[in-house]
Structures are given as C-alpha cells and as structure tokens.
C-alpha cells in the first residue's frame, strides 16, 4: 500500500515540477492575489473625488469645507458656482461627491438657526457611497459641536450637563479597521481551494484522456491506493500554498498571527480534504480537461459568493443562508480569521472544525464511490 502510494507521489511530483507552466501557475497567481488584496482592495475610502458648490462663500462655509479636505477622505477636484457643472462632473465619473452649501449658511448659523450642507454621492457604487456618507456625518457632527460651544459662550445659559450618551468605540482584533487584514486570511482559503480542486480534477481527467488511467487500472492497485496517490501530492502542494501566502501576509503586510500554527495546519488539512473530494467529484463528471475546468468554475463562483468573504451571510435570504452551511469555505474563513486575527483556539473553533471534518468525510466518501463506479 505505502509502496504504491509512494510511487504515485513520486510520479505526480515529477510531472508537476517538469511542467514549467504549471509551476508558474502555482506560484505567481497566489502572489499576485495577495498583492492585489493587500494593496489594491480596500474598503477604506481615501481621496474621494469631490466637487464643491459653495454659494455662501463665507468664513463659516470655508471652515466647514476645509475640514472635509483635511480629513484625507476627500479630495477637491473642482470648485464651481454652477450646480449643473457639478452634476455633469458626476455624470462623467470625474466626481463621486458634491458638497453643496447654499447662500445664507453663515447667516443661519449666526442667527442660531440650522445651516444646511447638502452632500450628494454617486450611488452607483453603493458601498463607497455609504462609507463616504458616514465620514461626512462624522465631520459635520464635529463641526456642529464646535458651533454649539461658540453659541453657549456667546449666550451663557444654565449648564445643561454633559451629553446623555457618548460613544467610546474601539475595534478589537483589528484596531485600525484595516480592510486588508479582513481579506488576507480569506485569500489563503481561495488559493488553496483553487489550486487543489484544479490540480486534482485535472490530474485525474488527464490520465483518463491519455489512457494511462486504464493502464493503471489493469494493475493490482486498489481504488483506495489510487485515490490516495492522486490526492496526497496535491494536499502537500496545498500546504505549501498556505505557507507561501501566510508568510507573505505576515512578513510583508504585517498581518497579525495570534493563534496556534498547529491549529492552522489541522484545520487546513480538514479543509483540504473537502477540496480534494470536490476535485475528485469533478473528475468523475468530466471527460476532458476543459470540462473539468468549466465545472470547477461553476463550483468556485457560488462557493466564494456564499462564503461570507465579500457579503455578510447574515444579510442573505434564508435559502442562501441555508446553502452556506454546506460550503466548506464558510467554516474555513471563520477559522482563518480566528487564528490570524483573534488568536482563539479549539475551544472556540471546534464547531467549525467539526463541520469541516463532516463535510470532508462526506465529499471524499461520495467522490470515492462515484470514482469506483466510473471505473467499472
């Protein structure tokens, strides 16, 4: 048993390392992905392109507006008195935000009335828009707090006491709310899934295509030996990818690693078993490598969308939420964030690990059954 599996392993690795193209696929895209997610993909908005339509043109209006631009979240692209021009800039996509202050702003503040600031955002990107609005609300609240203080100085009234509720906010595990710390652990999951599902399904289908599968099946090798020999090499490659991406994340992007390495490896092993099972399953329904590739993407897209990586699971309709329970990625993401950012252990993560174990055993069992059938 061990002897045959060893020979399968040697053969798979020889084939893998001989294929320069495949080697590049194993190393470059993971690095590229981690760079993209580490640098480019951020949900923190900086330098939102902003047009100012200041019709008041007073010290007060300028003071308020300058606070927007000194925050770093907004960048002035044009100042205009023509509201239509501002609208045109937004149509063309040159501006994402319009800050509009009507005539009489300072006068209203002076006479103890409310001054109006109109903030218009480009709603075609709803995510960015809502983040920009929250910045605007914060900046305006600070400004209006200052105005209230001035008023109290000018018209002393009996002290109203401190504000009834004040927020003391702090983000645990990711103090500066760096979005890349949210994404990077997830990238590990994607890369490992993509690579192992792809390699497994392609390797089996390729052997079917060139006829060596048949040649092996006339030998006394058992299905278990064949399947192990065909999946173990890619499990090892999967672990290699995890190490690669995690190392770059920790050393280059300062991604915290607060949990246990052993826990990461055990959980990754569980996740890998689901990925290998799915790879095998795909190989049983595909006759050519193209079919295998297409089938893989058919699986990959929903798996990513229903993982909670990009869209919170709690926001999904109940049916979709139900589906996520079958998605190994869902559990692995929780484990990865737990191990990297929170530093929690088995005591907290055992339900996710148990779910992965269950899914892994189930997919491998189904895959092995189907695999045996396609042989006969």
């Amino acid at each position: 048993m061990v002897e045959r599996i060893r020979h399968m392993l040697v053969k798979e690795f020889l084939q893998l390392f001989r294929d320069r193209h495949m080697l590049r696929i194993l190393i470059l895209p993971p690095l590229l992905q981690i760079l993209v997610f580490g640098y480019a993909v951020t949900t923190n908005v900086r330098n939102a392109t902003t047009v100012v339509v200041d019709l008041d043109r007073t010290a007060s209006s300028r003071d308020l507006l300058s606070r927007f631009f000194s925050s770093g979240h907004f960048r002035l692209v044009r100042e205009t008195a023509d509201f239509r021009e501002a609208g045109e800039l937004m149509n063309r996509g040159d501006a994402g935000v319009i800050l509009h202050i009507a005539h009489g702003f300072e006068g209203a503040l002076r006479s103890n009335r409310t001054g109006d600031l109109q903030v218009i955002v480009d709603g075609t990107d709803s995510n960015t828009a809502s983040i920009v609005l929250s910045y605007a609300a914060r900046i305006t609240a600070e400004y209006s707090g200052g105005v209230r203080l001035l008023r109290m100085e000018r018209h002393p009234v009996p002290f109203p006491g401190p504000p009834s509720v004040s927020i003391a906010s702090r983000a645990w595990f990711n103090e500066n709310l760096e979005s890349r710390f949210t994404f990077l652990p997830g990238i590990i999951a994607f890369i490992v899934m993509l690579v192992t599902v792809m390699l497994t399904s392609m390797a089996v289908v390729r052997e079917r295509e060139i006829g060596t599968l048949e040649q092996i099946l006339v030998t006394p090798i058992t299905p278990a030996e064949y399947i192990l020999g065909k999946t173990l090499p890619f499990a090892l490659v999967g672990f290699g990818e995890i190490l690669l991406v995690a190392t770059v994340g920790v050393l280059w992007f300062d991604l915290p690693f607060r949990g246990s390495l052993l826990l990461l490896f055990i959980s990754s092993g569980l996740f890998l078993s689901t990925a290998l099972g799915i790879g095998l399953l795909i190989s049983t329904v595909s006759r050519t490598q193209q079919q295998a590739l297409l089938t893989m993407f058919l699986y990959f897209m929903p798996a990513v969308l229903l993982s909670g990586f990009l869209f919170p699971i709690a926001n999904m309709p109940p049916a979709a939420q139900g589906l996520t329970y079958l998605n190994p990625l869902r559990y692995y993401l929780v484990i990865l964030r737990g191990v990297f950012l929170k530093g929690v252990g088995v005591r907290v993560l055992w339900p996710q690990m148990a779910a992965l174990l269950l899914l892994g055993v189930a997919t491998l069992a189904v895959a092995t059954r189907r695999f045996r059938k396609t042989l006969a």
Partner: protein
Amino acid sequence: MTAPGGISVSARDLTRRFGDFVAVNRVTFDVRRGEVFGFLGPNGAGKSTTIRMLCGLLAPTAGEATVAGFDLRTQAESVKTRIGYMSQRFSLYEDLTVEENIDFFGGIYRIPSGRKRERKEWAIRMAGLSDHVRTRVAHLSGGWKQRLALGCAILHEPPILFLDEPTSGTDPISRRSFWDLIYSLSGGGTTVFLTTHHMDEAEYCDRLGLVYRGELVAMGSPRELKDGFPVERAEGIAPTLEDVFVSLVEGMDRAAGPVAEVRG
C-alpha cells in the same frame, strides 16, 4: 499458475450491452496456454470491449469468464496480478522519461526489489532504448513507444498478455520486430490474446476468432479457416483470410438485411 487442461482464458456466453446496443453478444471461446490467439474483425465489432472485459476494465453484462483460472467476477484482484495489458494508445506518461515510466509501473506492480533492476534493464534492452533512458517519452517515435508500452505492461512477467490493436500506427519494420517479440514471449509460455483488423497480421496467429457485430462468427487456425469454408471463387485459387471473412460477413448481412428493412 496454469488453469486445468492448459486453458489460460475461457469465456462462456460473455455479453456486454451499452443501453440497447449489444457490443458483445454471447461470445464463447478458450485460449490455450502459450497460444497466440487473435480476435479479427472490423472496427466496432466488439473486439476491444471483449478485451476490456477480460482485463477487468469493464464489467460483463452477462456470461462468465476465467483468466488464469480465476473467476473474472469474484477474483478480479488475482486476475490483475497475472495479466499484462497494452492498448492501441500505448498509454505512457509522455512528460516522464523512459526510465521514469519503467520505474513507475515497476513500483505499481510491486516487483520485488531483487528483480526490479534486472526487469528494468530487460525492458530497456527489449525496447532498444539503451541510449534514450533519460529521453522523455513525448520525443519517441511510434515504434519505440509501442515497445516501451509493451515493456511496461509485462515488467511483472504475467503469464497472460492482452494486446488491443498493438500495431496500429506503427511502420512495417516496427510491426515486424514487434511480432518477433510476441513469438518469443509465446515460445516462453506466455499466452497472448490480441485484437487486430489487419488480415496479414491475423495470419501470424496460432488461432483466430472472427468477430462481427459483437458475435464470434468463426474460430480456428488460419489454415482451418481457409480450408473449412467454401468460398465462391474461381477454382484453383487458394482463398485468403480476407476472402473467408468477407464471405462470412456478407452472409450475415444478407441474413440480417430483411429484418433491418422491417424495422426501418
């Protein structure tokens, strides 16, 4: 490990259906130990399906077969240690070298480490690849691939060898030397079961089964087949195997014709 009576392969009413299509229809034959037995027939006659069933790659729909004395249905694992199989595709790993292919199949067949080296050298010499041990198989010509594929298939010295269209896609010289090899194996006691659609190649076999539309229509040595069947040809000219085959097939088509019309 020889079956009683020196029978290596025995099929009884062996049948394989794919849906409504009957690929192999109640085929019965025996192959004796050390014999070169050929299945001759056109493409789609059921030759490959039969050989795939005998190798355990395809489960028979009905009927029985024993290979090396073991029941194909119940003792498939024992059968597999005693057979070698080479398909017309010469299934080798093209991205591996000659040596790596041999090492891999040797490992899968679990050849004892004492024998391993000797068998490897034998295979390399037999295939004439002594100077190309580290050449990738992709760079080899068809004839070399054929001999290497054969070498890999019989590294474990199986008493029975199944060859599915073994000489397709190779040149006449390769084909010639391939047959020399088959004779030497057969002389050493190996039973060879092969399929072919080349009439000239069929002449080299000790015994032939003529197959057409999934049925075994005649069986015997090339001599017996040619002598035993009355062929409507000018007198004084010895019939060839092709004549025998064509007359048999035409007879079958005539018999099947009216049925086909009624169905249509």
